[in-house]
């Protein structure tokens, strides 16, 4: 029997018993997200209004309980993992698209709305929601805001932060405020910009106003086949330096091509060294003109063959292939660890060679499928968790890849966030004073550091919350609940 603490009973009074779970069997699902870290929250709650969230935050404040917010749990850096236990607020019930303002091209949504659902709703009005992470059919917009999520089409349209106009947020102490609003520009400090990508450490976004874009009249998707990855990268550099910014440019390597073909024959040549996916969007005439230029450049680099997906259906198959590439890797190994790193576009060839080398040194296979146009690499380290010591080795390989990215003028994450996964590497990029500045800003939003504690900052930097966590650990799990 799970002896319910006073805290849990008070949570139940706010939400009703059905929307508070604390039995270990039920909590099992909330131990995971899309990353390799795991930890149990002490209690998970499912609010359905901002008022309830205000009450929850006040209670958590009163009982000094850490708070971790969760969308669909698709994050890849451990952002939704309750690594210090405590209260997990799952926002999946707050999934209403409150309004779509066609005249002003914006939408007001609750944080639990699935990314793709908003895009689909917008498309009925010839509008679109541009950020399209590969998990868009499952991930929530609130989660996208926490992580400043990206996606293939960020090359032309920018990441989530470029599409958020305003947010109603609830802070650590239960106070509620608006950051930004419905206007494109607003006065005062751009705190909405600081909040997006704060990985749940500043507050909970309870209402979100997003910018929608007009749908382009023409879309053309090219698939180019190359003998090696380096040539595909060269094509990407050439296209950009010729003054073309396609909507997306994605590269898939031979290992991944084979995995995809094994799952589902989409007609990719098995002996190809790499495949480059290029999407052009724009006005009639303009896209054709760009297409001619792209074809010319592909030939110049020595493309083996290319084809144009002219029909919508064909295009969708190509994108499904790209976005499903990770799933297909299951054919090659029982587990994979997806690394997210960034280098300047011109260093792509170098970093991929380095990734290869690191893999060879450790005797580990690495597949590559990535947002080439942004220099955002995604090496997938293939492994078998059951083999002893393998996970540790994989984490070592991931670290070496990130170090290599930074050494080439890049950084630790392009779209997955830091979370638990990469916090130890932050000193590679930021000085202690740089990190302290971030903590100063966090202190304003969350003075006790109780929102998503233990994320982003390396353990060596003392958290306000850390001592308390130690005390909690000594007292035994759930003892403070």
């Amino acid at each position: 029997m799970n002896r319910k603490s006073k805290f849990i009973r008070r949570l139940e009074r706010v939400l009703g018993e059905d929307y508070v779970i604390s039995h270990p069997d039920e909590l099992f699902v909330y131990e995971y997200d899309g990353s390799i870290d795991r930890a149990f929250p002490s209690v998970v709650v499912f609010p359905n209004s901002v008022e309830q969230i205000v009450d929850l935050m006040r209670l958590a404040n009163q009982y000094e309980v850490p708070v971790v917010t969760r969308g669909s749990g698709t994050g890849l850096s451990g952002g939704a993992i309750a690594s210090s236990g405590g209260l997990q607020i799952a926002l999946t019930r707050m999934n209403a698209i409150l309004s779509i303002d066609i005249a002003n091209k914006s939408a007001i949504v609750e944080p639990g709305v699935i990314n793709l659902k908003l895009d689909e709703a917008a498309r009925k009005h010839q509008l679109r929601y541009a950020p399209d992470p590969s998990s868009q059919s499952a991930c929530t917009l609130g989660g996208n805001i926490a992580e400043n999520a990206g996606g293939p089409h960020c090359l032309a349209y920018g990441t989530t932060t470029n599409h958020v106009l305003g947010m109603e947020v609830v802070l650590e102490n239960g106070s509620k405020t608006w950051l930004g609003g419905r206007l494109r520009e607003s006065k005062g400090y751009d705190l909405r910009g600081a909040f997006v990508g704060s990985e749940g450490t500043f507050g909970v976004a309870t209402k979100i106003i997003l910018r929608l874009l007009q749908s382009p009249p023409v879309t053309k998707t090219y698939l180019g086949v190359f003998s090696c990855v380096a040539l595909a990268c060269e094509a990407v550099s050439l296209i950009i330096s010729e003054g073309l910014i396609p909507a997306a440019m994605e590269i898939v390597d031979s290992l991944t091509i084979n995995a995809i073909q094994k799952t589902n024959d989409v007609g990719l040549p098995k002996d190809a060294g790499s495949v480059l996916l290029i999407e052009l969007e724009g006005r009639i005439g303009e896209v054709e003109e760009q297409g001619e230029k792209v074809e010319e450049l592909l030939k110049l680099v020595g493309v083996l063959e290319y084809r144009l997906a002219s029909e919508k259906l064909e295009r969708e198959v190509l994108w499904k292939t790209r976005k499903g590439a990770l799933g297909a890797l299951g054919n090659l190994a029982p587990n994979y660890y997806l690394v997210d790193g960034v280098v300047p576009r011109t260093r792509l060839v170098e970093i991929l060679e380095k990734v290869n080398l690191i893999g060879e040194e450790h005797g580990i296979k690495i597949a590559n499928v990535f947002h080439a146009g942004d220099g955002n690499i995604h090496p997938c380290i293939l492994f078998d968790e059951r083999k002893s010591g393998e996970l540790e080795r994989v984490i070592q390989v991931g670290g070496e890849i990130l170090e290599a990215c930074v050494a080439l003028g890049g950084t630790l994450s392009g779209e997955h966030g830091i979370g638990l996964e990469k916090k130890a590497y932050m000193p590679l990029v930021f000085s202690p004073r740089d990190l302290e500045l971030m903590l100063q800003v966090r202190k304003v939003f969350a003075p006790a550091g109780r929102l998503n504690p233990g994320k982003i900052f390396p353990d060596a930097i003392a958290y306000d919350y850390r001592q308390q966590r130690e005390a909690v650990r000594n007292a035994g799990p759930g003892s403070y609940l």
Partner: protein
Amino acid sequence: MDNSIFEIIKKNPNESHSAFLERTSNLNVDGMLPSILARPRTVDQIAEVLNFASENCLSVLPSGGGTKRSLGNIPNAVDILMDLSCLHGLVTHEPSDLTATFLAGTSLTDVQSILSGSNQFLPLESPIPSRATLGGILSVGMSGSNYLRYGLPRDWVLGVKVVNADSSIIKVGGQVVKNVTGYDLTKMYVGSLGTLGVIAECTFKLAPKPKERMTRLIYGFDNIDSAIQVMDNILEDYGLVRGLVLIDQEVESRLDIGVEGYAILVLIDGTKRTIRANCESLNAFVGHHKVKTVGDHYWQQMLNLGWIENGRPVMNILLRFLPSQLKDVLDMVNGIQLQEMKKGLIADPGIGKIRLFFWGELGAKRFHKIISTIAQISSTAEPSYEYLIEHCPVILKKTVDIWGQEPDALELMMDIKNELDPKKVLNPGRFVGGI
């Protein structure tokens, strides 16, 4: 005090009072003359100035080209004017990466001429670009006339090096086009009017320079409704124009455009082929109104209006609203009747803003009447409307908050200021809520 950085502002023994005023007129901030002029030439020297200021409890007003110095409430104190225009030049430019880093005192004109060799440009716009510096443009952080295609200044900044009020040097963001490593504090500095730190270096994402550009003037409207209809149609056509504004008779005559009534200026760019095709599409929307090609220079002249000395209005007010509110806001603005004064406007319906200009004698009574009419719009329209007075006579400025209504998150903003600049060294009193 290092004499190579600091200069005490005082009248020379043999100098007449009028000569002294003339010599120091470009250092004047809202009618106040700083005691010290600081000219740092390196990032470390910025830190030195801030350290000196902090130790002596002096205020510091960072300044680039001084082109928008009238923006902001009257400062609480003007002790040190920090002129950053000596800190200029390119740090790195990687044409194939479409990124570049510049020192903050680099003028926009210099930036564009450096980049144009690679057929690239930085999509920031500013009045008087030969003087306006990157640091200044980012501190103000306002959109130009190219929002439709290029968005806001915040969208182009990848990272900045900042000297904090405590004289520590920090970097936020990075050098790459996609980055979620740590908090995105770059955004916080853009548009903070120099109240959080001194931007010393900035890294940008760049854009390929369009091959050609063409400006078309649509005119001959009998009434405002038909102009709005034409604009709506143009804006609904995906990617047709890169910029679009509505101007009134007064602005037309100030710019010597030589047409009557409301007119629409649109900017089309791309290859020759694209421009030809887009012109055809545009003509279809013009209907029975007139259209002709005019010079590209009007775009810069419109940006300059309100900021250059020559023919400068006595007041500029910026209104922001939802694009769908354009008609309502125009009606209210046109309701402002002013004898012996001239009023002009430039409206940008794509982003939802109107810049209002007033010329002539502006007394206190008339000033408050205008402001109360403008403020009324915010109570009658809806919360998504705001105004700010960009420029007005100092004597009148003392009687209002130029930022209009306080933003919702003002308390958080004040906490940020207290945390990062507890001694209120940087630009004290100029920003929203007295920050």
